[in-house]
Each structure stands twice: as C-alpha cells, then as structure tokens.
C-alpha cells in the first residue's frame, strides 16, 4: 500500500470522526457566521463600504477559524491514547502528517465556503468576481493554513498554554499567506486582470508546497515518544 493511500485512510478516518461527533466543525461554522454577523454591525457602512474590507475580513475569519480548529484534530485520539497506537502502525510519520493535513484542509474548505457566502452576504458585496479566480487564490492559501496549523497544532497539544500558544507560533509564519491572500481576493472582487494576481498566487503555492514538505520532514520530531 502506498504512503499516499495510507495518508488518505487517515484522512477518511479523521473526517468520519469529525462528522460523527461534529463538535469542532459545528463550532467553526458557528464562529464564521457569528463573526460575519458582528463585522456587519461593527462597520459604519456610510464611512467604510463592506466591499472595501471584505477581502481582509474573509481571510482573517478563515485564519481564526482554522487556527481555533487546527489543534483539535489530535484531541480525540490523544484523550483515548489512540494516537500512540496510530504511531505504532506501519505508517510513516510524513504519511500521518499528510493524512491529518488533508483532513484539516477539507474542514477548512467547508469553513472557507461558508465564510465567503456569509461575509459577502452580510457586507453586501454584490459583484463577487469570478468563482474560479477565487478558488485559484483560496486553494494554495488554505493548503498553507492547513499544513502550518496541523504541524503546530501537534505542538500546542502538549503545552500547558494549549490553544493560546498556537496563534503565537503560527501567526508570524502565516503573515505572508494573509497578505498575499487578502490582496489577491480584493483584486478578484474588483474583477482586476489575472496578471495582477498571478504573481501572488505563485508565491502562495510556494508557501503551500514549502509548508507541506517542511511539515512532513520535521513531523517525526513532534511524534517521537
């Protein structure tokens, strides 16, 4: 059985657990809807039109929701001691990391779709630009978020600071993703030509591929018992 197939089995197991229990997903969904709702009230629409800040708020909500949920991917297994058993199976550490990252990524995609719908609706963004262009920006950005969140989420599970530590570790590294993602999404919303966006998307892909490879290479050091 190939490593990718093993990683996919871990993803399926995690997603099945996620959808059966639903706690993490439900709290992330509630967070993004309520955040969009609150932003709509916090903005003075006469001074700052929602459209002007929509891209930044979309990316910040995705970042906060994914960070809040990222560390939880290890919770159920950690409490039951199942993660140790997972490590005893003949699955390589990079495959475990890839499996966990993919599960996180699929959850983040659901949250991203909901964030996009709720924020464009609440902030009254009428022309939303091309859906394909949005997907082309969000795909590498969310891969970077999922890989970084999964990697440092594993660390924060063992820290007495718990969830408060995760933003300290991940936010400094995720600044490029937020900057490139938000500026690209803003341009897609304004229907600017793709040539203005393609450079940032290439950098987002570089970050995504780099974070997956570095995470897979170093994950062994976070799991050695």
């Amino acid at each position: 059985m190939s490593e990718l197939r093993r990683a996919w089995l871990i993803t399926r197991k995690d997603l099945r657990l996620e959808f059966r229990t639903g706690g993490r997903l439900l709290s992330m969904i509630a967070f993004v809807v309520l955040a969009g709702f609150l932003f709509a009230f916090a903005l003075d629409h006469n001074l700052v039109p929602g459209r002007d800040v929509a891209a930044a708020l979309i990316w910040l909500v995705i970042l906060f929701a994914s960070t809040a949920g990222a560390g939880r991917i290890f919770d159920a297994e950690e409490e039951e001691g199942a993660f140790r058993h997972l490590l005893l199976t003949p699955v390589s550490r990079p495959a475990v990391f890839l499996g966990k990252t993919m599960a996180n990524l699929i959850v983040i995609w659901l949250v991203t779709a909901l964030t996009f719908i709720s924020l464009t609706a609440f902030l009254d963004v009428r022309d939303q630009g091309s859906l394909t262009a949005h997907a082309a920006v969000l795909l590498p950005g969310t891969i970077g978020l999922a890989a970084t969140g999964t990697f440092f989420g594993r660390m924060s599970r063992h820290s007495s600071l718990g969830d408060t530590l995760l933003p300290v570790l991940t936010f400094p590294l995720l600044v490029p993703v937020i900057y490139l993602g938000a500026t690209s999404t803003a341009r897609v919303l304004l229907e600017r030509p793709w040539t203005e966006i393609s450079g940032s998307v290439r950098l987002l892909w570089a970050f995504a591929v780099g974070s997956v490879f570095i995470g897979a290479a170093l994950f062994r050091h976070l799991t050695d018992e």
Partner: protein
Amino acid sequence: MSTRARIAGLALVTAGVATILVTHWMMAFWVPSEAAQGVVQRIFYVHVPAAWTTFLAVGIVALASAVHLWLEDERADAAAVAAAEGALIFGAIMLITGPLWGRIAWGTYWTWEPRLTLTLLLWFTYLGYFLIRGSVADPRRGKRFAAVVAIVGSLNIPLIHVSVEMFRSLHPGPVVIKPEGPTLHADMLATLLTSLAGFTLLFLGLFTFRYAVERLRRRPLPAAAGEAGEALI
C-alpha cells in the same frame, strides 16, 4: 561553572564592554556626521551591529537545534538556548533603534516594508521558542519542539536578506558587503567595524556564561547533596 568558562566569559564580556565604550567615544567625538541625515545617522553604529549579532545568534540557534534533533546532544540544546536568549535581547535592541532612526529619516516610527516586517516576525518566532520550551511538561519533548521552532524560524533569515533586493523597500541597502567594496567613508567604516567587534565580543561573552550556567543547571546533583535534600524534606 568551570574556571576556564569563567575566565573566558569574563575576558570576552570585558573586551566587549570596553570596545563598545570606545565605539561610543568615536560616535560622540570622532566620526564625521553624514551629510544628508546629520546626527541621527549615528544610530547606525548601534543598529547594524545589533542586527549582525542577532543574525549570528539565530544562526547558532538553528545549527545547534539541528544538531540536537539529530544527535539528541544536551550540549547542543544548551548552546541553542544560550544563543536564543542573545537573539531575543540583541533583536530587541535592533527593533528599538531602527524605529528611532526611522522617525527622523522616514518621518515615521514604523513602516510595513518587507525587511522590518520579516525581522519583527523572526523576533516573535523566538518568543514562541521560549514559550513552547517552558510550557511542555516533558522537558525532553519541550527541547525537541523548541528546536523545531528554531529551525522553522531560521528559514526566515535568507528571506530577510534578499527582501531589500526582491521587493521595493525603504530600508537602506548594504554599504559594506558589496561586490564593488564598501561605499562608506573610511572613518565611518572604522567606527562601524569597532562597534561590530564590540557587540560580537559582548554576545560571545554572555553566550559563554549562559552556556556554562545551563550546563551546570542540568548536571545531576551528587548523591550526598540528594540525601541531604531528602533529609531536610
């Protein structure tokens, strides 16, 4: 602490402090003022050596952390933690002196240009290094996690270096290490090099002391001391 470490640390710190005092005399009475910026340019003689020392310390942390992950060598971890404290302190000096100069030269304390932003992020990563290290119950695991954070954080350094050339940047470019040679006035170059030597010696002295203390802290207590402790309890 061994006598050798004590003598080496004391000699390096004394030499470093003396050289920094000489640099301050040169800054105040000897070096000419830069024509365009005037007196404020003298912050350069503190800011640049602080930045150099920070990156030297970060390099030591990354190297020692990689060795620790590879060989699980306690000495490498002690060296990493000693250098990381230096990176945090000298990094703070760099991040304070930069905005003081920027307020006069650029008209603002801070601007979100790439080199400043990436350097601030590097400093936050090292803050995370100490947080993860101190908050994990199993010390062996805490050291390993901190080493991983240090290695990931150090990937930022090449980006900081090339950011001035890659992006439009307000930050001044290099004036010493250039293919055509330094483009700095000879007296300014002498002051800068003296300051660089002073900061480096001070860092190496503090590093030597801190490393020796860290090794001492990890040394198991002699049996007699342990028994005495138990008797007290």
